[in-house]
């Protein structure tokens, strides 16, 4: 029995009124699942609820992946930092799954809080201010150095590999806003590759792509699913969904209908 990554129990999603109700789904390791249906029916709402961006109206979402870096989320508008370079965007994915950087970030926040407190009590000539200030610096400065050093290390390994996988090594330092739509989608894919999450949630990530770009994106995603990641994708093209997915959910009359596909 493979591990379950996501459990949706009696889930009702929607913004103020329920859009889709009574969702009971389990997602196992290595599965590719497509949510299909016409636009405006609540596909993206389900995805956003799974991503934790909106609260469910009723029921619960049980994410059995790591809280940090375990879930890869690719919104329809890709969510890239448009003014930053390709490398920066892919590094974002890499640092979100890095435990070292998470620890460093925690120490940095604690250090910053101590620094602010020490400066505050310095104003009132409290004798504890200088040692507190020193402690804050000792937490803050090394954690910043560690973050920079480790991020550079990630850039040389994971990020470089992900860029090679999607063929964007020459565009490394180009700002994302100067890239074409297909190239931007490849950047988003590389970001997810560098993150290597156990569950990928992608909204319409194959739409508006020509055949060549779609193949690059799909192959990169396959690389992840072959390694054991699961994927939930929203797709309006049912033919393409059939060719990619293991299971398909269709939304009919405000509830999910499941369709199992037997691959030849």
């Amino acid at each position, binding site marked *: 029995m493979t591990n379950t990554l996501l459990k949706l129990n009696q889930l009702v999603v929607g913004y103020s009124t329920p859009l889709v109700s009574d969702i009971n789904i389990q997602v196992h390791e290595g599965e590719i699942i497509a949510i299909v249906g016409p636009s405006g029916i609540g596909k993206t709402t389900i995805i956003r609820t799974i991503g934790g961006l909106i609260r469910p109206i009723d029921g619960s979402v049980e994410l059995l992946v790591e*809280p940090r870096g375990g879930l890869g989320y690719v919104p329809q508008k890709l969510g890239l930092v*448009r003014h930053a370079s390709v490398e920066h965007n892919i590094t*974002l994915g890499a640092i979100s799954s890095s435990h070292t950087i998470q620890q460093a970030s925690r120490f940095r926040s604690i250090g910053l809080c101590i620094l602010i407190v020490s400066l505050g009590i310095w104003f009132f000539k409290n004798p504890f201010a200088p040692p507190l200030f020193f402690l804050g610096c000792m937490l803050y400065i090394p954690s910043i150095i560690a973050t920079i050093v480790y991020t550079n290390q990630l850039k040389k390994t994971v990020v470089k590999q992900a860029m090679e996988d999607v063929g964007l090594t020459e565009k490394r330092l180009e700002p994302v806003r100067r890239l074409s739509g297909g190239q931007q989608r490849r950047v988003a894919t590389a970001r997810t590759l560098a993150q290597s999450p156990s569950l990928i949630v992608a909204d319409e990530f194959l739409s508006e792509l020509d055949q060549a770009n779609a193949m690059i994106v799909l192959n990169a995603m396959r690389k992840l699913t072959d390694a054991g990641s699961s994927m939930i994708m929203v797709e309006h093209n049912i033919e393409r969904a059939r060719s990619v997915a293991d299971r398909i959910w269709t939304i009919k009359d405000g509830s999910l209908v499941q369709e199992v596909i037997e691959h030849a």
Partner: protein
Amino acid sequence: MRDSKPQSTALNSALEVVKRYQILLFVVLLAFYAVVVMNGLIDGKWGRLAGGWENLRIFFAESLPPDWSVLEARSYPECNQSIGFFCSIAYLGMLETIKIAFVATIFGFIGAILLSSLAARNLVPFWVSIIIRILLSAMRSLPSLIWAILFVIIFGLGPLAGVLAMTFYTIGYLGKLQYEAIEGMDSAPLEASRATGLTRPEILTNVVIPETSNHLLSQLMFMFEYNVRHGTVIGIVGAGGIGYYISNYLNLFLYDKVFALLLVTFIVVVLIDMISMAVRSFVNEDGDVRRPSWLTVFFSPNRAVRYHKVRSDVEGED
């Protein structure tokens, strides 16, 4: 009943005319109301306006020609520069004003970034943003002149009070501009990074600041220019800079020197304004133009593009 029909058509046509010119009528009414309020303010003594011309004539007679001795080395303290201008009141005062504006802009920018990231509703919970917004608007509610008076009382005369006053006002003003820029940014990058589990400080440094950097830089330049302009004002309450000398000469009724200093201020502020405009054209949204040569720095983005296109076409033919 029979007579009422033509009456109502007359009423209707009058209403139609009112409807057609309603905006004009509204503006005329507002202007009339302003005149009435003004009349109340000056107790109906409109004759003072006519008397003003004589005073204006006297002021210009006393201040023209400007006394350009403010551009020469002052007698005390002794000048040890080879060029006398570098010891002049105009140069020293203006330089101090620019220094105050520079320091205050940098400190204010750092403070504003921290506070504005806590005030943007797409980054923090509602109650945090409300508290920080109240703080920011409290800092903004007093103009830097009033802050300067406050800090002159606390820290005494001199540039320290000026720097602190301006820093406070800069935080309040720039903070508002920045949190509006942050709230205006696209929500997709925020959602993607939030769902993957990045912490708030990481989102701020890796997503929000790169994404809004154009706005932030443009606002930074605008604020520097604004602070140089206001640096002349806060000097008047003794917070350092060229305004200090202006207010000194005003108290001594040396209007010709005041006029010279005002002209110097005017020229410097216009120059800084132009430089700031040129720099801001680099970073605005549609100004994403590569400018390989310094010649085109002072062009608008569109003209720069055209210039480089023409150049590259010519070079391509060679």
